[in-house]
């Protein structure tokens, strides 16, 4: 097969005053009708590589040397007019956020029409309808007149793909096209890409940080780190036996060892008992008529967590799993139900008692970048809850505790005097964990604590959480969309769908022989690394 794209010794630097290149001697090629996956953590230069192929680099980026040869032409030396022709005819790109890639004030029809720029074909509408059908949109006549906000995330990504393949490109660059989508939708999009590749005979450069997704569709795997290509290997060989140490580490991080099953003591006390929890929102549809629509975010769910155990709530976005966490923490109003923590009904606690009782249950949030106040030092961030919920401690004790907790979560003591922006994402999440652990809670709610982190860092945070559990017998309520992750760390699982728990039970039962249709579908959609 012929090479469709060849990248030779590509070096790119940002800001001429810094000598170091952000891309260092990138070499790889893509053959006809082949899917090549670029894998790396954030900042590894994978998106930069993709943008340089289509020559959409920021002005501050300078191409130091190298060639990008596409169909026997060096893209880097082409005139702007010629590169526009290539973008129009041969190379298309789809982006990570379908919400941001579509213009919100244009109808779908008008947007797709743009990609048929200067097309002489009179029967454009019919062609667009056919195109939409081919990307798996079942009612194109209806969709074509809608606006982006009326479509779901998966639908928008399909529209994006339809636009990208409108010109029947030779090469499709997909920059994390499934990252912001749910697992079930992700599977559909991946299947669609595979199908299109076979039908249109096009090559795909697939950029992702998720090894499991890459293993699903790619023929070749390229691993990047710090602007360098570390490994360029056949997909099958890569997953069987990666050559590079870093690739090995990546693979390890993507698969979690099964949790050691603890000998469940019958004496274990109840830590959290949620009974018939309902959280409804009222939404006024029309200001004048005032007709209220009730949205059932959480509809009659119950579960129980014993001490030292981990319970996981799994579900897609919009299933109400975060609302459960917020309801327990008192961040939203509860319509009906009981929440008992350490056999105290927290809804009946009042005033100071209620506040002080909060030290027994705490929460870690999803995004460590917005969960730390940028204008406070780490010391005062961690101290905040401590001063408030443990008023009996004096300054000396507090300082000792702070230093102690920092070493526990693996941070340096002098971090106390730094500001959040001086830390990386993983370190920030450690600080967030330290902030709640310092209160010595009995129950910790983790709301997707790793979903905004890189895979290797994810692994470290999960290990830290498991380590803490082994030492302190703390209970976790783990909220996640990632069944792979959850199945390896939790003792029991509840699967949530549209505000209801559709299935619940021991982890091994659910994963191995689920009885519910939705759970099965969810399990099917989860990408697994093929070995």
């Amino acid at each position, binding site marked *: 097969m012929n090479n469709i794209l060849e990248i030779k010794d590509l070096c790119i630097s940002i800001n001429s005053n810094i000598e170091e290149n952000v891309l260092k001697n990138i070499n790889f090629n893509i053959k006809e009708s082949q899917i090549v996956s670029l894998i790396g953590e954030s900042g590894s230069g994978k998106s930069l590589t993709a943008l340089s192929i289509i020559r959409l680099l920021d002005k501050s980026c300078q191409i130091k040397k190298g060639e990008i040869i596409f169909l026997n032409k060096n893209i880097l030396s082409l005139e702007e007019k010629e590169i526009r022709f290539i973008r129009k005819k041969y190379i298309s790109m789809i982006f990570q956020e379908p919400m941001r890639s579509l213009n919100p004030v244009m109808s779908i029809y008008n947007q797709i029409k743009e990609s048929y720029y200067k097309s002489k074909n009179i029967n454009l509408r019919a062609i667009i309808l056919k195109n939409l059908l081919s990307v798996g949109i079942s009612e194109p006549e209806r969709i074509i007149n809608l606006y982006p906000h009326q479509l779901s995330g998966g639908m928008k990504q399909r529209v994006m793909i339809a636009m990208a393949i409108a010109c029947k490109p030779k090469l499709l660059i997909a920059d994390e096209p499934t990252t912001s989508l749910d697992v079930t939708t992700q599977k559909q999009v991946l299947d669609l890409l595979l199908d299109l590749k076979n039908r249109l005979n096009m090559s795909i450069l697939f950029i992702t940080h998720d090894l499991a997704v890459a293993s699903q569709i790619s023929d070749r795997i390229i691993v990047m780190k710090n602007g360098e290509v570390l490994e360029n290997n056949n997909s099958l060989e890569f997953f069987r036996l990666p050559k590079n140490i870093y690739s090995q580490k990546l693979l390890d991080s993507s698969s979690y060892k099964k949790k050691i099953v603890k000998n469940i003591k019958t004496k274990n006390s109840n830590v959290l008992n949620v009974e018939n929890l309902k959280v409804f929102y009222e939404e006024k549809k029309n200001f004048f008529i005032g007709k209220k629509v009730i949205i059932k975010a959480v509809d009659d769910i119950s579960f129980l967590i014993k001490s030292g155990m981990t319970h996981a709530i799994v579900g897609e976005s919009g299933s109400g799993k975060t609302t459960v966490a917020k309801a327990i923490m008192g*961040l939203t109003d509860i319509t009906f139900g009981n929440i008992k923590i350490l056999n105290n009904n927290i809804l009946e606690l009042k005033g100071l008692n209620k506040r002080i009782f*909060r030290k027994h249950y705490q929460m870690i949030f999803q995004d460590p970048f917005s969960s730390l106040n940028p204008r*406070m030092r780490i010391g005062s961030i961690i101290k905040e809850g401590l001063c408030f919920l443990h008023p009996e401690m004096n300054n000396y004790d507090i300082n000792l505790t702070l230093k102690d907790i920092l070493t526990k979560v693996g941070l340096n003591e002098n971090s106390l005097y730094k500001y959040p922006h001086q830390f990386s994402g993983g370190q920030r999440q450690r600080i967030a964990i330290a902030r709640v652990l310092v209160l010595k809670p009995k129950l910790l709610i983790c709301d997707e604590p790793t979903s905004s982190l890189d895979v290797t860092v994810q692994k470290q945070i999960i290990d830290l959480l498991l380590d803490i559990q082994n030492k302190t017998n703390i209970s976790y309520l783990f909220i996640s969309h990632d069944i792979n992750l959850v199945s390896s760390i939790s003792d029991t699982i509840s699967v949530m769908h549209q505000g209801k728990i559709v299935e619940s039970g021991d982890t091994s039962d659910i994963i191995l022989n689920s009885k519910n249709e939705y759970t099965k579908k969810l399990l099917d959609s989860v990408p697994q690394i093929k070995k």
Partner: protein
Amino acid sequence: MFVFLITDLFFYLIIISLILYVFHVIKTQDLLENWMYVFKNKIGILSVVVLFFFILITFIDSIHIKEKIYDQEKKEYIYSNEVKSLLDIILLPMHQYSEKSYSAPFSSYLYNKETIKLEKNTNKRVYPKLKYKGNHNKYSENNFHNITVILALSLLKSFFICLLIYVIVFYKTLFKSSFKNFFFIKNNKVFYYSFFFIIFTMISLYDLSLQYYVFGTDKVGVDVLYKSIKSIRTGILIGTLTTIVMLPFAIFLGILSGYIGGVADDIIQYIYTTLNSIPSVLLIASAILILQVYMTNNPSSFENLYERADLRLFFLCMILGLTSWTSLCRILRGESIKLREIEYVQVAKTFGLSKFSIIIRHIMPNIMHIVIISVVLDFSALVLAEAVLSYVNIGVDPTTYSWGNMINSARLEMSREPIVWWSLLAAFIFMFVLVLFANLFSDVVRDAFDPRLNNNHE
């Protein structure tokens, strides 16, 4: 005897809070970094120096005293009825005597011809000589030579003064290292040049005005330069006092409406949309008229003219403040709504912190940069607003020196023949310099506090 006018007290309050803020900045690392960005910026340090001198003049002009005079009738010392500021005493040669009427800058004669009697009962129309200045050249009969000598001498003087300041600052470890660091920073060249240039301007203007009217005289023969310098206080006070009045409203109501939401939000929104829809000029005019009626009905409650004029200035600041808090309030409301949903505020809620402590600890520090930016931006707009309001006769008291009043009187001066242009020019130059540097300063401050440009700080 010291006299404290109401605007003086508020201006002292501003100075004290400014000093406290400086100490707060020196202690807080990231604030210090932001401000160092302002000082390291060429335009930033330049405008800081210029604005510093404007504020210094205002401060000197805000220390008011009554002098002891000997009463001939009662045969005892009493306090004079006239309230003077420290600046008046320093600039005594400028306003001690006044000429008869208009005279052009650096002129030796009045601007209008007068009939004088000659010996043989014959009248002649001539330009009379000025009585006090313009005809008493110290160094040379030639005006040009005389001025050159004065300028050269003042250049020498300012050089020595700057040298003296430099020696005082660097004399051993008189000052803490943080201050010293400031003098060694990257763009200190600009700092020294601009400092020297302003000192030189001030000294040469003073020296020149001992022998000339640098900006001429006005209708009643008062030195226009003196009037312009006295107007600085009015301009700065309008800019700063109004902000002091406006800030509590904007911050308190903005956060209340954004963070607490609900009914409070509705009420506050209605208040500021209503306030916004009233033409502010009408509101200010009516408020000033009410005050005037009050003052004419109760003349006994004011000791003298100065207090009346001062109260009117204060009242003007109040009413300007009341009408101008809405835009900042709206911005702060939006920002608080954004912060309300952010995760560190949620975390604070899970710790059980009260709403009040969340506002103090988490919301306030994260909106302060917006407050600083908009305060600095509003300042120059308010200085200009004063001029506009005085022009339509609803500004400060006609007896108060202000650029607005000068421009207002220039309306008539411009329509006579030959025209009197120097009043307008002087007011224009002073106002232009203040507003220009305030704007430049606000640009740099905005850059320094804009998180999107934060990477420039490295």
